[in-house]
């Protein structure tokens, strides 16, 4: 709390007005908040991962048809969910940035992209390692797999484009357009197993049907999904902080943050 209070005192003239939640839309408010929250999310991710791994390997039973290799799903499914969800959140922040012209929104969407790409790759990688013993192939050009691969390329495209354009305002806008156009692919991935006759199995968890797997398997998968959420929040908040400093380097509050950093070492 000390950080935030100091900043407020020193910057009465730039203190944003309005409802308390929107206060944090201002970079100088959000920067210390992100720094305070990230370690808690990281700790939550660590605890949830430990519980999730224990459920996945020591509680969940052997699958009747797939044997032990099915245990890959405890990371495969959460990673695939995360890769789609992060892309939608990126598109959301891109839209907010375009409509409200808020710089922090674009930065948020760019801070999310590498983690989204990581989960997307993990989903493809674990899927391949599961596919070989189960389907007899690491890869097939099935609708689900192909649209997920397209998602990975969209992530790469977004990252490459926003880094290649030097003018941050133009980079923000170009990135936002890829994020928004690419978001169309997410429902295609999600529903591909219904729309096309795919080799990939249907949704593992559905809100409308009773779960088709053992309760302990479902629990393991959900705990790992929460771990992935907490991890994403922590790593994104850590990544966005230096990005904010970079963008706001001309301001006085960044000067003060940097002075403190220099004092520290």
């Amino acid at each position, binding site marked *: 709390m000390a950080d935030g209070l100091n900043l407020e005192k020193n910057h009465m003239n730039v203190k944003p007005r309005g409802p308390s939640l929107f206060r944090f839309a201002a970079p100088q408010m959000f920067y210390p908040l992100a720094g305070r929250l990230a370690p808690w999310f990281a700790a939550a991710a660590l605890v949830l991962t430990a519980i999730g791994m224990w459920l996945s390997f020591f509680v*969940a039973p052997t699958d009747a048809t797939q044997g032990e290799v099915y245990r890959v799903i405890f*990371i495969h499914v959460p990673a695939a969910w995360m890769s789609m969800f992060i892309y939608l959140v990126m598109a959301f922040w891109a839209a907010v940035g375009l409509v409200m012209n808020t710089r922090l929104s674009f930065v948020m969407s760019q801070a999310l992209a590498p983690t989204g790409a990581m989960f997307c790759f993990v989903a493809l990688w674990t899927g391949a390692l599961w596919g070989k013993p189960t389907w007899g192939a690491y890869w097939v050009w099935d609708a689900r797999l192909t649209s997920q691969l397209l998602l990975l390329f969209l992530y790469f495209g977004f990252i490459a484009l926003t880094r290649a354009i030097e003018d941050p305002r133009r980079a923000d806008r170009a990135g936002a357009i890829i994020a928004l156009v690419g978001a169309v692919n997410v429902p295609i991935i999600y529903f591909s197993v219904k729309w096309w006759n795919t080799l990939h199995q249907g949704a593992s968890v559905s809100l409308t049907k009773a779960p088709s797997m053992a309760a302990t398997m479902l629990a393991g998968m959900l705990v790992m999904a929460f771990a992935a959420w907490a991890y994403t929040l922590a790593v994104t908040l850590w990544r966005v902080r230096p990005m904010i*400093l*970079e963008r706001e*380097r001309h301001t006085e509050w960044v000067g003060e943050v940097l002075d403190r950093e220099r004092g520290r070492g």
Partner: protein
Amino acid sequence: MQWESWSAFWDMGGAGAFVWGSYGVTFALVALELVLVMQRRKDTVKRLLRWRRAVGKDGSGRLGAAQLESEQ
């Protein structure tokens, strides 16, 4: 408990390479991402401190200001 022994656990019913290959790569990537994020923070702070010195924002000279500004 699902496993009769530790070797049965590592073997994963013969699918050890696939299961551990999945978990291993995932955790390696997570570790790599964390290292890169921490590294980036250090680099950014260092670069911005240099930039501030160069543009004279900390009141200690204005060497090569234009150069560093365009570097950003």
